[in-house]
């Protein structure tokens, strides 16, 4: 049964009077230390006539069961299949090597502070982006084919970086029978010095030749893994969750018949979001409020146009988030690209248009908090302009039109505070340094270009 109005009423009624209790975890911890036993005790077994009788009956039952099973197995064998190993049949995705060609696709970086951060391919920097080191787990490459080169990346490789020391990478393994037999997730909590490999995650996806995955962690322990068959207009998505830092995973839910979905984002204390490309006239966002077990499709408040995509989304806490949405608006037969900023302050229950982008075409956007955004805007000139807003998109000011000449086509923007920001381009290949890396320490007026390299 669902009654969104009643649910919202409950939240309004009690969020106003139940204060957050951030001290509670410490208080409970102290109480457990003071009053809890060191080892949970079990009640002593009573040694009267009943226990031996029960034990004897149990033993008889076990023996009888074993005899029955043995007789059944003589007639019918039920195989228990462990994860299978193998390179996979012909046509399976290949390893990404230096000779694979093509770009690395979407480029993403996570900077924990001005000096330490991560880039595609589990590259890590501790000097603000000049030098990068591949800290990916060696075990990930244990079955790399001969001649793959120095640092190949396995099929299905995905990654997620939480902070300066916690990161996860995942890959698929095939077998003789299938391209996608199971997934392994590797986790590090020391910046890539050591990695733990998860128990095999058996792939529920029926994929032909491409499986796509996304990883998202909200803290060192709680994370989600989303899998789907790739290269399709619509597909089923399978969501798995982990509560132990990625060492074990269980399947939570299945979302059926979705268009291409990216932007899996979970935030502490729920909700979680999955943004999907929509071919309908109204864009939607899939939201879960139970950690991924059930999902509702929410309509976003943009009504005109077709072919919506969520370009970027940031959720600052369980209540507040911002989306950058782009759409194709058809005027006659000609599509015109339009871009929208929409925001939520109630955990995604309702969304409002936050503001407008400056005139021109947004190429990259950075969201620091609900008020402070930066946008790289193409104004039809050689180089784009960098704008900033301090009021959530209602008004914008130009910071600079004097950026160093480079290819801005696939650039990304990232700000970690009001003053420190990064602008970078994609790498040529997974595991290679970003093509360009610019740093600002004055909020975006002046930028310094460094020449990143992998050592």
């Amino acid at each position, binding site marked *: *049964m669902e*009654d969104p109005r*009643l*649910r919202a*009423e*409950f*939240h*309004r*009624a*009690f*969020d*106003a*009077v*139940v*204060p*957050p*209790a951030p001290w*509670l*975890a410490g*208080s*409970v*911890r102290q*109480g*457990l*230390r003071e*009053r*809890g*036993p*060191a*080892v*949970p*005790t*079990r009640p002593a077994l009573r040694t009267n006539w009943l226990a031996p009788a029960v034990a004897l009956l149990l033993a008889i039952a076990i023996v009888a069961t074993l005899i029955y099973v043995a007789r059944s197995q003589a007639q019918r064998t039920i195989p228990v299949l462990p994860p299978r190993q193998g390179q996979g049949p012909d046509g399976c995705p290949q390893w990404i090597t230096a000779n694979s060609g093509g770009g690395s696709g979407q480029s993403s970086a996570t900077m924990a502070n001005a000096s330490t951060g991560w880039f595609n391919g589990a590259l890590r920097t501790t000097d603000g982006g000049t030098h990068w080191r591949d*800290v990916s*787990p*060696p*075990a990930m490459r244990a079955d790399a084919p001969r001649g793959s080169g120095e640092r190949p990346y396995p099929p299905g490789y995905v990654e997620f970086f939480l902070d300066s020391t916690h990161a996860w990478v995942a890959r698929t393994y095939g077998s003789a029978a299938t391209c996608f037999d199971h997934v392994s997730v*590797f986790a590090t909590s020391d910046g*890539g*010095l*050591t*990695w*733990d*490999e*998860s*128990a095999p995650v058996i792939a529920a996806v029926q994929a032909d030749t491409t499986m796509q995955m996304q990883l998202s962690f909200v803290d060192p*322990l*709680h994370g989600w893994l989303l899998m789907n068959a790739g290269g399709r207009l619509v597909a089923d998505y399978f969501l798995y969750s982990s*509560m*132990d830092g990625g*060492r*074990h995973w*269980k399947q939570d839910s299945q979302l059926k018949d979705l268009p291409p979905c990216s932007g899996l984002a979970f935030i*502490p*204390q*729920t909700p979680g979001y999955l943004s999907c490309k929509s071919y309908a006239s109204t864009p939607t966002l899939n939201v879960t*409020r*139970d950690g991924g*077990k*059930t999902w509702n499709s929410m309509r976003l408040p943009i009504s005109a146009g077709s072919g919506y995509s969520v370009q970027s989304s940031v959720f600052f806490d369980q209540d507040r988030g911002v989306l950058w949405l782009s759409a194709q608006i058809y005027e006659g037969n000609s599509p015109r690209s339009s871009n929208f900023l929409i925001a939520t302050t109630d955990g995604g229950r309702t969304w409002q248009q936050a503001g407008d982008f400056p005139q021109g075409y947004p190429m990259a956007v950075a969201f620091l908090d609900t008020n402070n955004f930066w946008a790289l805007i193409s104004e039809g000139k050689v180089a784009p302009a960098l704008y900033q807003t301090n009021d959530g998109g209602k008004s914008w000011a130009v910071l600079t039109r004097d950026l160093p000449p480079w290819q801005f086509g696939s650039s990304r923007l990232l700000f970690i505070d009001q003053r420190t920001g990064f602008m970078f381009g994609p790498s040529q290949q997974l595991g290679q340094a970003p093509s360009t890396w610019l740093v600002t320490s004055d909020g975006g007026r002046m930028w310094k270009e460094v020449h990143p390299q992998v050592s």
Partner: protein
Amino acid sequence: MAVQPATLSLVQAAKQGDDSAFEALLEPLLQQAYRLAFVMLHDHHAAEDAVQEAALKAWRKVSQLREGSDMRPWFLSIVANQCRTARRSRWWSVLRTATPEGTSHPADDAVLEGLELRTALRGMAPDKRLVLVLHWYLDLPLDEVAGVIGTSAHAAESRLLRATNELKRRMEAHRGRP
């Protein structure tokens, strides 16, 4: 760089007496537990005490937790039971009269807006209040609500439906008063 194969899950570690593992399991649930306790007991201090006691009881009963089972309904059922115990002891030890909200000091709009629902909820039996809070405030799906109250999902849905209808009737009646 060493690669260590995965060994113990948090649940296994907690069952073997690893209090850090138990705390890691419990911590994500504490805020919801606190909200549940507050709504059931209407008192911040009592809510904190109930969550503390429930955490201690959960620690002592962690050996009963099955591998792969959901921690949240298991722990919230302990919290709900603790609230029940707290209510009974308070009933006998302290004579309480219902303290009307909104009469002690001026409250802001957000607090006043929810007064009708909170008042209606307080007038309902605790077991009905529990299912309403679990589903509509803590956003638990029906199977988890069933896990907390110890029934089937079908029975939980029936109980929730009856409680929701009663809540709405109470709120309508409250609106009708001058």
